[in-house]
């Protein structure tokens, strides 16, 4: 039997199922990162010594990556908006850009941040500052990778759905977009906490 409201909006809640689902998932993600941010606060307030973020981490590279992610948030909205205006070509371009920007973020992160740190032996076992840095940014990077896989699918093989069920495909882009914004927002909290404070 068909499950109701997978595509159409339920009138009294104003949501389709997947949209509610992603919001609930994001709520749990807030608690996950909230737990880690609380851990950061508790560790820092109890530590006898703590590093100044801006001295140990590269603020210019962090700033660059922040802009990359914010830009990708813009492009993902553009891809959804293009699809709403029935322009699959533009959708593909903007979604492709989103994926590209996500990749740039990861490459910069690994090449210019993780590698030099490991070289300088700034690793989790040397100090809790680096330990929490690696956990927070690493978990965030995993979220970026997850988002890239989903976006990549929706850009490539998944986009066939546009021909068969455009309404549901549009919903999927919206849900994926919400998740991608969330990944961006997490970074916007991570960046000042780790790099500037």
């Amino acid at each position: 039997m068909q499950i109701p409201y997978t595509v159409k909006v339920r009138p009294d809640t104003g949501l389709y199922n997947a949209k509610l689902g992603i919001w609930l998932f994001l709520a749990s993600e807030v608690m996950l990162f909230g737990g880690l941010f609380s851990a950061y606060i508790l560790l820092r307030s109890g530590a006898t010594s703590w590093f100044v973020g801006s001295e140990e981490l590269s603020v210019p590279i962090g700033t660059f990556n922040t802009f990359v992610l914010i830009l990708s948030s813009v492009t993902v909205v553009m891809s959804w908006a293009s699809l709403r205006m029935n322009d699959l070509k533009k959708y593909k371009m903007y979604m492709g850009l989103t994926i590209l920007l996500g990749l740039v973020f990861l490459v910069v992160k690994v090449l210019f941040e993780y590698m030099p740190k490991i070289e300088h032996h700034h690793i989790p076992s040397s100090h809790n500052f680096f330990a929490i840095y690696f956990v927070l940014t690493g978990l965030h990077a995993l979220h970026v990778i997850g988002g890239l896989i989903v976006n990549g699918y929706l850009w490539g093989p998944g986009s066939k759905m546009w021909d068969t069920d455009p309404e549901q495909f549009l919903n999927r882009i919206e849900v994926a977009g919400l998740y991608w914004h969330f990944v961006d927002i997490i970074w916007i909290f991570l960046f000042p906490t780790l790099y500037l404070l």
Partner: protein
Amino acid sequence: MVDHDQEEPFWRKYIFSVDHKVIGLQYAITAMLFLFFGFCLILIMRWNLAYPGEVVPIVGKLLSEEGMLTPDGYNSFGVMHGTIMIFLGVVPLAVGGFGNYVLPLQLGAPDMAFPKINMFSFWSFFVGGIFMLASFFLPQGPASSGWTMYAPLSVIATTGETVWLFGMVFLITSSLLGSINFIATVIQLRTKGLTWMRLPFFVWGQFVTAFLLLLAFPPLEAAAVLQLMDRLAGSSFFMTSGLYVGGEVLEVAGGGSPLLWQHLFWFLAHPEVYVLILPGMGIVAEVITNNTRKPLWGYRSIVYSVIFLGFMSFVVWAHHMFLTGMGTKMAAFFQTTTMIISIPSVIILSALFISLWGGSIRFNTPMLFALGFLPMFGIGGLTGLPLGLASSDIHLHDTYYVIGHFHYVVAPGTIFALFAGIYYWFPKVTGKRMNEGLGKIHFFGSFICMNGVFSPMFIQGLAGISRRLYDGGASYLHAEPVLQWNEFMTMAALGLGFFQFFFIANLFISLAKGEKVSSNPWKATTLDWAATPTPPLPHVNFENIPEVYRGPYEYSMNGGGNGQKDFTPQHESVKD
């Protein structure tokens, strides 16, 4: 969309099924097996408490060459008993089993909102369970640092701990996906006319439970990641500087805080207590209204109470940590919130008690278990009050009193509610009723034995016996006056095991040749009974999705005497 009229292959129908009813049964059967296994672990431990260091009968050869339970084995079994009972037994049965099977039926929904995610949730749970079981085969045995995994002990523990953490990550993922599904189903798939105040209380219990799982588990996932880092990458999140292990200073950077683990852990584990109890309360409310043939007393007030309970459960966690030296101001805050959270629990329990008043009660097996739940949960709740106050907790912390308290809540509390649910919904699942005679032996035997096991724990705890002693206190002078209870409790536990065989036999006998029943054998009002065929067909819950015209418990509303029907199902419209 798959065409379900066609016959599906076996693996799709019974193994990787997306039908909420099959998934519910998968959860329930797996969870019951785990409950049995967890119970066997504690029987071995109880044997050792009564006869420390003596050869364990039957299974001794599996434990050690000498045939006795070793102190290390005792520690491991304690951890695994707790882990299995909570995360692999009670919660999967109450939420995964009953929730999956009954919730869509009571909502008038064709399935859960996300059937594939539902299937994934079960298999993630299954993999987590395999991890936990596999850890028994490690050379140094499974995790052994207490089920709470307090650091730094857990960080320096053997490999079993790592496997435990990986297992937990799978279990957390499972309940996360499950809880999203439950909430989305309740909000989106309620049938026409089923407004919030017409939901059966069972649905409310599951709904609030799902929110607790959704929001409380992620911090434990964060904590598990941090502990894995401590163990595998050598970080010091939970390790202070200058720790001595085996006479030598531990080579870690230090600067971490063992308290951090406790905060993150109890932020989950206190809401988890309500995850354990709320589905049970939901089941009991259904069974009691059905068998007293009366509406639930104070429906609205207990719905608001359960919501309030859900909120409050997030701000009481540190009452597990009064002895950590966190300061009197913090303790004062958490004592206050703890006293406040007891109010909604009392409202719910009182409403259930008052619901009995003036009813013509049918004393069938599910009702007996539901009635057993009320005082047992009451004892569990009331004995919790001294633990919620810092001054009395100093004496009682980490003693058998604590064990007695939470086992009264979970064992004769939640597990009795779950038994009530099994006896109550068995006809729905199979179309046959469970044997009443065997059911009554099961109830009275379990009731007496449960109390025999758990009430002496209060006596031992007040005498100050620690909960973690391998010999049950035999090496301590202060334990001597209460030591004789150990043998008594072990005998009661063995008796409890004996009476469970009546239940197991009942399951199989009733399945094979139980009395066949009509589609609504209990004369119930909720949609799960009234509007669906019994047992429901795979993938088809309702031939036509029913509409709802009234509240969930309209029993004896229009007299009902003289052979008249004394109940009005939710989907019966006014003109019928």
